[in-house]
């Protein structure tokens, strides 16, 4: 382990990606993720990698498609409106079965919204995002350290299942500074030479083709089923979540992720001091969603609250998890407003009494 | 004596567009009466003797159906 240093989430995830062997990065500036592209602009050439500021998010994601097709560890980043523009390319990358990492440092929406932190892109991120029948694994950090650790993790998942992976952060996680430590070593990249373009191959020449066009409906059906078989494997192996204050039977279960979950933790701690037992289940993978873990954590509680920085999106997954077995309520804020711990403590206390 | 040349038109590829017929300065190519497996009247060489091997038919052919050999 190296020294503990102080970094913004945007910087830390960029540094972690480079340390994890990412040598290709294409992006377009947008607040509040610009420190990420600026960090890459400064550091990627020093690491001997490729940095390019693309002419648009659309171009950036297609440059990622090119690098991913060559089997490179490649990353891009943006914030909500830019991620919308990237969806075309993400759909192609998913369909072509290519590994790539996409960081979304979300801002307020819809439209141009504002630069404040929101979790309003949950539906987009967890339901594929672009056109077609596909998903992408979605990792949701809630600290700078976790944000940084997700860069190598995202590459490993991307390569294991040959899929684009989304890191679902927000402006707060991107902008705030926290101490961060980087591990000394990272998992090596999986050998892509069996499918990647431009690989020198021994023996008889056979060209590699990367394609997502399957005119015959039966073939497309088959290809989609192959994709979904891989999704089953991801569901089996990659579901991640954190249980907080759940060891003793709580009266209220809160499900919350990312920045919102940080405030929830403060409220849970404050309520614990008052003798009110509230547990938090924090999904770390938003797709695949920890349905079973939520259902288990909800056993015996009076109510399940979903706390989000939006008008109620993850709430739908929570209700799917509970399948009507428990009463639920939604607590959210839009506009980029963030709950204060005091405010949230009061709200949760209201449900507990 | 003129050099011997041989022109072969692969019916598998030929779509009978006629661009090679237009390209031939000797007029030695023509549509066949029969249909090929794709449903086109393929082009055939009607006069191998007249062919000089200039390859203009090959140049014009969009389907790379033509092979030209020379002695």
């Amino acid at each position: 382990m190296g020294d503990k240093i102080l970094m913004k989430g945007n910087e830390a995830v960029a540094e972690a990606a480079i340390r994890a062997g990412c040598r290709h990065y294409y992006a377009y500036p947008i607040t509040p993720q610009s420190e990420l592209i600026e960090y890459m602009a400064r550091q990627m050439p020093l690491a001997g990698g490729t940095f390019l500021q693309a002419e648009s998010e659309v171009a950036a994601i297609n440059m990622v498609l090119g690098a991913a097709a060559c089997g490179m560890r490649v990353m891009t980043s943006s914030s909500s409106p830019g991620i919308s523009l990237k969806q075309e390319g993400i759909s192609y990358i998913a369909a072509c079965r290519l590994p790539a990492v996409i960081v979304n440092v979300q801002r307020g929406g819809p439209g141009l919204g504002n630069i404040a932190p929101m979790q309003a892109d949950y539906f987009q991120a967890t339901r594929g995002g672009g056109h077609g029948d596909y998903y992408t694994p979605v990792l949701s950090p809630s600290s700078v350290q976790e944000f940084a650790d997700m860069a190598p993790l995202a590459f490993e998942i991307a390569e294991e299942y040959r899929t684009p992976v989304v890191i679902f952060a927000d402006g707060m996680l991107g902008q705030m500074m926290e101490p961060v430590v980087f591990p000394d070593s990272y998992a090596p990249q999986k050998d892509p030479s069996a499918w990647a373009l431009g690989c020198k191959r021994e023996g008889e020449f056979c060209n590699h083709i990367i394609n997502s066009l399957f005119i015959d409906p039966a073939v497309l059906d088959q290809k989609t089923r192959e994709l979904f078989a891989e999704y089953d494997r991801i569901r089996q192996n990659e579901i991640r979540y954190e249980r907080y204050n759940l060891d003793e039977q709580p009266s209220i279960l809160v499900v919350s992720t990312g920045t919102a979950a940080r405030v929830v933790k403060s409220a849970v701690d404050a309520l614990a001091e008052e003798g009110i037992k509230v547990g938090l289940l924090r999904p770390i993978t938003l797709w695949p969603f920890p349905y079973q873990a939520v259902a288990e954590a909800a056993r015996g509680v009076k109510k399940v609250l979903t706390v989000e920085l939006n008008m109620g999106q993850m709430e739908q997954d929570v209700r799917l998890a509970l399948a009507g077995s428990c009463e639920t309520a939604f607590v959210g804020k839009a506009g980029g407003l963030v709950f204060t711990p005091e405010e949230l403590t009061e709200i949760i206390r209201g449900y507990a009494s | 004596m003129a050099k011997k040349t041989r022109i072969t038109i692969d019916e598998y590829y030929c779509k009978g567009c006629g661009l090679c017929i237009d390209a031939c300065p000797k007029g030695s190519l023509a549509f066949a009466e029969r249909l090929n497996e794709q449903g086109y009247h393929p082009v055939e060489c009607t006069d191998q003797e007249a062919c000089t091997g200039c390859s203009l038919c090959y140049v014009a052919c969009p389907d790379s159906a033509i092979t030209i050999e020379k002695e």
Partner: protein
Amino acid sequence: MENEGSLVIVTGCYGSGKTEYAVNLAAAGEPGRTMLVDLDVVNPYFRSRDLRDEFSARGIDVVAPEGSFSHADVPMLSRRVKGALRNTEKRVIIDVGGDPMGARALARFSGTIKERGYRMRLVVNTRRPQNRTVEEVLDMAARIEAASGLVIQELVANSHLMEETTREVVEEGAAVAGEAARQSGRDFFTVCVLEDLLPRLGEPRVQARIFALKKHLRKPWEPGSGKAWRI
């Protein structure tokens, strides 16, 4: 001591803790006679303007883009900046954006600033990348001077890892800042430590006096963040 100088410019590497230091200087200022000028055009979050309401209630004037524009991500300066710089009735503290990039915003006011006279301080946090060694600190100072057209006279050590700050971190930062000051003939002005941490850290061995910082800019989940955290 911290209140020396009628115009204090606070610069430093991005994330060095400039804003927290500038805000603390302002908070320690005389009510009705202190102005805090927010010149940060690079950072979209955690800016001194976020404290405007709290400070104005205490008689400290925060000069920053007004109204809804204070949350904009366009490089916008308050039209009151020039007037504030000329107002010698008040002590003025300027919170500048990080890095040479942030210091560029100073250049357009450098004439007015030089006329009035100023003290420019470089805040050093050796736990930030690109600010870890004496060489890196001096390089940052030179580049900020070049971008702003002004001269840094004083160095402030502010090495920290927020709540995870240890005594070693504070001492390491003070040593680097002190050595950088010595090598460049600048004044090693002060060493900042978060007030809440002082009891735990004991008495760090440093070559300058210690300035206890109150934490004003909190993350939304930190108790007491409610009023301060606006964005």
